[in-house]
């Protein structure tokens, strides 16, 4: 049963990340996940000062607010400052992370505050971190419940607004002509990205999320040039990474997240060689 929960959790994260990651790649913003993983630090520290405790819920709120602020700043510098997106991402997250480091060393040098200790979860512990109903019966792992909700929200968003997302991603000027606000959809998508990344960090840790946001979508991008196919393929690659990654970690008794990311990398390499030698 443990294996089932871990693979299910991995797959939920993988599909959420694959769908959002596909849009991010097409918008040249893949590294936004990595950026958020760093820039949440000041949010955690400030949440700790305000709440005076290290309870997960406060840390999530602090991290979530900073995640949205990050995506907002990235877009702001990109549009108003005319920076390329990569430079804009780089400037934003390093600055916010540095701010967090200063806050920790100056105000909380003696307390144990950092993302690794407080925010980042560990996928290995998903099956034992359960949610209980009022009678004390276990309903299911916390991460599975939260991540199912997140995935549901993403699916709903993409299915309902597929047309708008499609047009604003591929042809911003056409979107303007037909009266679709590129800004509005961009912020909606980025809001969803920061929600997903922060919730996933809390459940499974950072490296898995950052990698699954990029690798499966990148592999699918090599193979197809149709958005729908890309979304399905990247989701499938994500699930395969979670599944084989789990068994790889079982085989070597290693980090589960590390093994899942390794498999995602191998899938990308296979796709690359297939595409390359077909031509």
């Amino acid at each position, binding site marked *: 049963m443990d294996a089932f929960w871990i*693979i299910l959790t991995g797959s939920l994260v993988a599909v959420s990340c694959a769908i959002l990651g596909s849009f991010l790649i097409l918008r040249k913003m893949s590294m936004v996940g990595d950026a958020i993983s760093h820039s949440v630090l000041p949010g955690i520290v400030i949440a700790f000062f305000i709440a005076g405790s290290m309870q997960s819920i406060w840390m999530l709120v602090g991290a979530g607010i900073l995640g949205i602020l990050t995506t907002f700043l990235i877009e702001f510098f990109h549009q108003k400052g005319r920076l390329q997106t990569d430079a804009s991402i780089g400037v934003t997250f390093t600055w916010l992370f540095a701010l967090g480091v200063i806050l920790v060393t100056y105000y909380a040098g003696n307390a144990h505050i950092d993302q690794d200790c407080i925010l980042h979860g560990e996928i290995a512990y998903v099956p034992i971190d359960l949610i209980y109903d009022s009678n004390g019966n276990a309903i299911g792992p916390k991460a599975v419940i939260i991540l199912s909700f997140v995935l549901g929200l993403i699916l709903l968003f993409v299915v309902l607004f597929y047309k708008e997302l499609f047009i604003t991603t591929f042809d911003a000027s056409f979107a303007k002509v037909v009266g679709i606000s590129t800004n509005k959809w961009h912020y909606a998508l980025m809001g969803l990205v920061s929600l997903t990344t922060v919730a996933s960090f809390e459940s499974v840790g950072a490296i898995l999320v950052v990698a699954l946001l990029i690798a499966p979508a990148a592999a699918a991008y090599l193979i197809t040039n149709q958005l729908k196919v890309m979304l399905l393929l990247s989701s499938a690659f994500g699930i395969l990474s979670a599944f084989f990654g789990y068994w790889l970690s*079982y085989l070597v008794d290693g980090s589960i997240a590390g093994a899942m990311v390794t498999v995602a990398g191998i899938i990308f390499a296979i796709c690359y060689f297939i595409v390359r030698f077909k031509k």
Partner: protein
Amino acid sequence: MKKLSFILIVLVALAGCTNKQERSNDKPHIVATTGMLFDAVVNIGGDKITAEAIMGPGVDPHLYKATQGDLAKFNQADMIIYNGILLEGKMSEILKKLGKQKPTVAAAESIPKEMLKSAIGYKDAYDPHVWFDVSRWKYAVKAISEAIISLDSTNQQFYYDNTRRYLSQLDSLDQYVKVRIKSIPENQRILITAHDAFTYFGDAYGMRVEGLQGISTVADFGLKDIAELIDLIIQNNIKAIFVETSVSEKSINAVVTGCKEKGHNVRIGGYLYSDAMGEFGTDEGTYIGMFRKNVETIVNALK
């Protein structure tokens, strides 16, 4: 899409068939997170229990990354003993919740709150390195003993005797440390290390403790910290500073070099065990042996 969901179902079904490891005997099986706790469990439980440690020698508990096998260890345990006070980071939170399914004991949290040193005055933020004061650590040992007895009451007397013997060993360790530290000249009783793990040690045995890094092993040290430490070393004419086995020695080397530039020779007094102990099976792999070794290192370097 249909094909895809079919594959999904097969994969998930396959995932369900894991092999479960059978335990060879029906002794209570106790899993402890750190080496210090494991050592207490082994001393109290003797051969009436089986025990296992999650973190091996030289592992920094603040940064520990779980492996696939750790989950199986937790699942097979009849009881899990952890330090608590956030030493294990988020793992402590999860183990506390797991308490609804099987007994989990936060041994260090049995120490009365007024004996804990608050890190910055916030209610949840205490310094978790309690094992470096024997009298505080005895509370944790007693908590472990009570937990083991409640798990297996048939061997109550056996555990009780072991606990008493272990506690008296700890008492003589406590005495020994006090005597040895007193042999350092009073103005030399300053312990400088990379990582702030020795606050309770200093408090209990009358040494001033200065760390470069703060409690969290990832918080960076500032340039001002180094400058202040160098001034302190020169003012007090300190002979040696220390490196810890589970923390990089890079930062402490910066202090040594800084002192040299100002014309004061301070040397590295040796390696101290802080967050982890030595190899299992060696003398330094036990709590008492590790503690004695630390004290010898400190006394020999500062005397």
